């Protein structure tokens, strides 16, 4: 029997999903480090989510639900394929097609380099809380960990980032800004192999 409620919910489920895709995709880029792999991952996630949409209750947080599916999918693919999926060292290592206007190119290169030095769990935590806009409770549910664990990951990530950025901000390892920029780019390309 086809329930009436499903018929009413279906278009709305699609709409909700559409609204979440840009953020879901940004999270996928932060996990895979590469746009093509991120798009494949989002595609797999959309198909999984669509197949199990009856297990989603409208009115609950579809964004957290989709992020959970995407993250589970990412780690299960990583386990299956080994390092190949994760070669990139994660975290926006590719050149951005839309540059944030409020920051200089150097700022963002430094920041991406610092972000890529974080352990995976800390980088994921700081992105979910700081950029995706999740509460600690939602982020903990997405990562299947305790709220306290999430808080401590974020706090350690923040301290580490502040540390790294202060060091690179002093520019005491390169003769000038241009060569520093080249070095950092080479590094992130190297990591991308």
């Amino acid at each position, binding site marked *: 029997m086809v329930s009436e409620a499903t018929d009413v919910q279906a278009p709305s489920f699609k709409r909700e999903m559409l609204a979440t895709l840009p953020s879901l995709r940004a999270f996928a880029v932060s996990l895979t480090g590469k746009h093509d792999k991120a798009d494949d991952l989002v595609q797999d996630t959309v198909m999984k989510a669509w197949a199990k949409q009856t297990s989603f*209750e409208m009115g609950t947080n579809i964004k957290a639900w989709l992020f959970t599916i995407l993250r*589970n999918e990412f780690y299960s693919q990583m386990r299956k394929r080994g390092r190949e999926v994760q070669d990139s060292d994660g975290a926006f290592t590719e050149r951005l097609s839309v540059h944030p206007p409020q*920051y200089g190119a150097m700022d963002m290169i430094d920041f991406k380099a610092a972000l890529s030095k974080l352990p995976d769990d800390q980088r994921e935590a700081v992105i979910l809380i*700081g*950029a995706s806009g999740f509460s600690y409770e939602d982020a903990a549910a997405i990562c299947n960990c305790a709220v306290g664990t999430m808080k401590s990951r974020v706090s350690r990530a923040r301290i580490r980032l502040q540390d790294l950025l202060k060091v690179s901000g002093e520019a005491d390892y390169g003769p000038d800004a241009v060569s520093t920029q080249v070095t950092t780019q080479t590094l992130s390309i190297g990591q991308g192999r």
Partner: protein
Amino acid sequence: MVKDKPVSQQQRARVQAGPSDDGLGPNTDIGSRLRALYGSVQDEGVPDQLLDLLEKLDSAEAAQKSNTGAQNGQ
């Protein structure tokens, strides 16, 4: 696995700051750089292939439903 936790649905805001005491709030350097980076990917828009996929899933489901409905209908 996936938790169907009832959470209030106000994640609409594209970019929302975390709690102010975690050093990632709107006026922090790290928080705003994180959001700038993330936002730059969000602003790229959604690739057509993904939009096409959603449309296909949706119309496949609609077709299946009308089939089932025709079979069930007396």
